[in-house]
């Protein structure tokens, strides 16, 4: 076990390098991940946005956090897909029969998800800037936004790992991501929750996306985020821990 631990980081690094090559050799996945949210953003800003009263002047500012969360959710389905392919093509078995820490395979995919999400998020933010996104956040607020997005990406990616490990077919593997993509629509991401009917608004107020979006609204507007940021982080970390535990259980079950 000693040697396994000693090599955990170098092994993870090899796995990470492998899966980064996969991404850079199929740039279409990053582009697809970025294009759909950008199209949604344009739709909301130029078609629906005029009719939505958010109480703030700039609707691009309002809509961007939700768009980023949708991008993250849709990209994690690729993580699940790549993991599923690894299993099907037998390369996972090869890795697992080698003297390496077994979880490095998963970590390689998870780190790749972080990096590819960072890239598509930057692309989306650049497009947002072009169409009128005007943040007034300082460096520390930007950092806080980055941390929240990173932890949320990790949470959703570990959910994707569960899906990738337990899927029976390539078609079924991405199904898990649809509810996650849909979640921002029933939150404060596109319209204020106050405009929704009672039960819907109650759901919206108490699901993870709303505090995350609200926190990002405040941070990007250069205002203090208050208690919201702690609720948001609690959700992110909570989902992360639960997803991680279940992912590891699913992985162990594959081995046994």
């Amino acid at each position, binding site marked *: 076990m000693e040697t396994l631990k000693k090599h955990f980081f*170098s*092994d993870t690094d090899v796995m990470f390098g492998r899966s980064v090559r996969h991404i850079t050799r199929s740039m279409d996945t990053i582009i697809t991940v970025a294009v759909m949210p950008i199209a949604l953003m344009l739709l909301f800003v130029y078609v629906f946005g005029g009719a939505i009263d958010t109480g703030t002047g700039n609707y691009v500012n309002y809509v961007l956090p939700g768009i980023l969360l949708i991008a993250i959710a849709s990209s994690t389905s690729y993580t699940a897909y790549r993991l599923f392919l690894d299993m099907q093509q037998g*390369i996972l078995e*090869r890795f*697992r*029969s080698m003297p*390496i820490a077994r979880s490095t395979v998963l970590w390689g995919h998870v780190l790749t998800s972080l990096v590819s999400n960072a890239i598509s998020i930057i692309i989306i933010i650049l497009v947002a800037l072009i169409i009128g996104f005007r943040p007034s956040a300082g460096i520390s607020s930007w950092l806080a936004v980055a941390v929240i997005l990173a932890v949320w990406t990790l949470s959703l990616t570990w959910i994707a790992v569960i899906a990738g490990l337990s899927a029976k077919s390539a078609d079924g593997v991405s199904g898990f991501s649809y509810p996650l993509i849909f979640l921002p629509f029933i939150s404060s991401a596109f319209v204020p929750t106050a405009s929704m009917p009672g039960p819907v608004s109650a759901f919206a107020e108490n699901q993870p996306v709303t505090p995350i979006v609200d926190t990002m609204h405040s941070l990007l507007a250069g205002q203090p985020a208050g208690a919201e940021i702690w609720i948001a982080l609690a959700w992110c970390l909570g989902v992360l821990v639960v997803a991680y535990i279940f992912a590891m259980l699913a992985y162990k079950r594959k*081995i*046994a």
Partner: protein
Amino acid sequence: MKGLKKSYKQLEVLNGVDFEVKQGSIFALLGSNGAGKTTIVKILTTLLKQDSGAATVNGFDVTSEPGRVRQSISLTGQFAAVDEILTGQENLIMIAKLRHLKNSRQVADEMLKRFGLTDAADRRVSTYSGGMRRRLDISMSLVGKPELIFLDEPTAGLDPEGRIEVWKSVKQLADSGTTVFLTTEYLDEAEQLADRIAILHDGRIIANGTLAELRNLFPPAKVEYIEKQPSLEEIFLAIIGKKEK
């Protein structure tokens, strides 16, 4: 030398299997589809746990010391476990790094040369033929010189030329002192390659021995005169060989 012995029961797939493999030999496990050959390989390579019984690989118990077992073995699974998006060289370097070898690039290049893949080193594996893919697969299993390598149906789905390529590689392996554990459903493959052959049927090893010993189980050979027709395989290879020249 460490052999391995095992007996376990598992969902009636394996119903008390015992055998031993000598170091440096080629051992073939024969059986029809679904006989449980892959299950045995998976247990020996620590991918599956047996329900009961014990298995020892290179002196290490698969359940209590799986890490040590993995250190000393290598698995070439039923489907060529290569990364299609990477090139042949990148695949080998990746495995060498995971085995923590210092000169991973050099090791990779040596393997490519040994398996005749140098020209294809920089091509993505998705462009390889079935035989090339299998050779890369086997070469990846040899990185780091494991003492024992498992080949699970190494020639399934290959054309005759591909099979001969793989057989050559396997023979080379055994000549260099590596123990080879082979499963196959092709009888001629076992006959061609193996020092010892075991037949798995209904969850048990029903026969185990050298080819000569297995022959002795049957009544002495009768001498018959049969016109020797070339097999289709011989014809095929002869025609192809001509074309190449």
